[in-house]
């Protein structure tokens, strides 16, 4: 089972640790992401989601542990990893002074692809940016910027895409547009690792969800599996009631007779 998981996984993370000076951000993170799936890393601000993404995209070096992407080790084969991925960071990493089309052409040329102009035009159409293609990005709305950002990440069709909080700061309409784009990606067989602090986003998009808390993955499973974790909370609620009753009975029992006790009970 575990072996199968590892073999079928396109992202493999084991025992990842990272500290910024005194602050220990990651304390041994493990997870696997299956090829062609959407994996959500859920966590509050400062949980270490961005740190994980930065290590996986070769922007940061881990202190300990291993991480592999598409069969390449991030520490020893970073160039191969970079061939396999695209990163869409926390803030739309677009060039404000260039037009949308120029941004796409720039990335296509940096990926050494043929026909960068055609690639740009196709993506503009696919992301409903064709009309805005010639405009400076500084005139774009937040949603358009994010769409362009994601479009830039698709150039060269890397098998793995990292989306770091793709919808933070977007209005609901733009959020839905981004979700649509992410779903389409997975349809085409791209593996998507996204981080989010929105529970409904993970619920909407992800095949598997891992919760990163205080530098560790505390749960990892499908939405259905995570939901099955909820009943224990109900049991706690049931257990609390007798405790209240105990207190009540103890108080009433101390003050008066059994008869008084029963009267109170029937009145209520």
């Amino acid at each position, binding site marked *: 089972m575990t072996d199968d998981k590892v073999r079928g996984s396109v992202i493999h993370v084991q025992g990842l640790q990272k500290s910024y000076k005194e602050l220990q951000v990651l304390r041994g993170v493990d997870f696997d992401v299956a090829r062609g799936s959407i994996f959500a890393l859920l966590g509050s601000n400062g949980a270490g989601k961005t740190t994980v993404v*930065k290590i996986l995209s070769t922007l940061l070096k881990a202190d300990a542990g291993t991480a592999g992407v598409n069969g390449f080790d991030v520490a020893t084969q970073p160039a191969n990893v970079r061939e396999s991925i695209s*990163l869409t960071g926390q803030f739309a*990493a677009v060039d404000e*002074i*260039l037009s949308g089309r120029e941004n796409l052409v720039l990335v296509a040329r940096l990926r050494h692809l043929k026909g960068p102009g055609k690639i740009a035009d196709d993506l503009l159409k696919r992301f409903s940016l064709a009309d805005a293609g010639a405009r400076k990005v500084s005139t774009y709305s937040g949603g358009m910027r994010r769409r362009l950002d994601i479009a830039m990440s698709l150039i060269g069709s890397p098998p793995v895409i990292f989306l770091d909080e793709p919808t933070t700061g977007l209005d609901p309409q733009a959020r839905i547009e981004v979700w649509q784009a992410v779903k389409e990606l997975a349809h085409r067989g791209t593996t998507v690792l996204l981080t989010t602090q929105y529970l409904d986003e993970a619920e909407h998009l992800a095949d598997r969800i891992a919760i990163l808390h205080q530098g560790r993955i505390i749960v990892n499973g499908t939405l259905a599996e995570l939901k099955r974790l909820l009943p224990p909370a109900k049991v706690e609620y049931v257990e609390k009631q007798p405790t209240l009753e105990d207190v009540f009975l103890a108080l009433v029992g101390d003050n008066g007779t059994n008869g008084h006790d029963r009267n109170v009970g029937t009145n209520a």
Partner: protein
Amino acid sequence: MTRHFFGDTAVLLGRSLRHITRSPDTIITTAIMPIAMMLMFVYVFGGAINTGSVSYVNYLLPGILLITVASGIAYTAFRLFIDMKGGIFERFQSMPIARSSVLWAHVLTSLVANSISLVVVVLVALLMGFRSAAGVPAWLAVAGILILFTLALTWLAVIPGLSAKSVEGASAFSYPLIFLPFLSSAFVPTDTMPGLVRAFAEHQPVTSIVNAIRALFTQQPVGADIWIALAWCVGILIVTFAFAMNTYHRKIS
């Protein structure tokens, strides 16, 4: 990845140059301050400064050219800072490109932008009566010194560009550089200065660079000044390059 170094650098250079053509004000503002200084010194203070047989605008221009470079490189720090802050630097670093070409593109852009500003300043100086009988080799030598000087200061600008926390912080480093020429032979001959100031002025890099350029323009023998000037430029370049690379490697690991 290094096989793409030149291609990637060219693509990224094209991007930065497009930034400049779309906001030509960066070139104008770079040139305006030195030009204003030149006007002030030539038409207001110049009459009171005794530079011997040399006309004051001829005397002043070399120092003004260095001030132009010092104010121009602030934009390199600014542009790099914007790339860092906007996340596009990280996007480039996570792509299969020659990673260092991101820095080299900014450095080459600085060379191009500063060269244009320098040409603008020289043209204004010509209008103000600057004349030089220097031949092509002397002009090439001046250009070479200025390019070396620009490179050295540009790598210095890369350091705050990569590490600054705010826009102000990214460009503030250039202010002292702009004032360094005042404590040199750029505006007044150093022999009028009091002892300690004079000692500093005569041993700081600006004086030897200014003297070398001035000698080339006036077709005087450059003497030891040019070698001291080149040694300063190369020395500063090596140190700033090393520190910039160190900052860069800390940023990407």
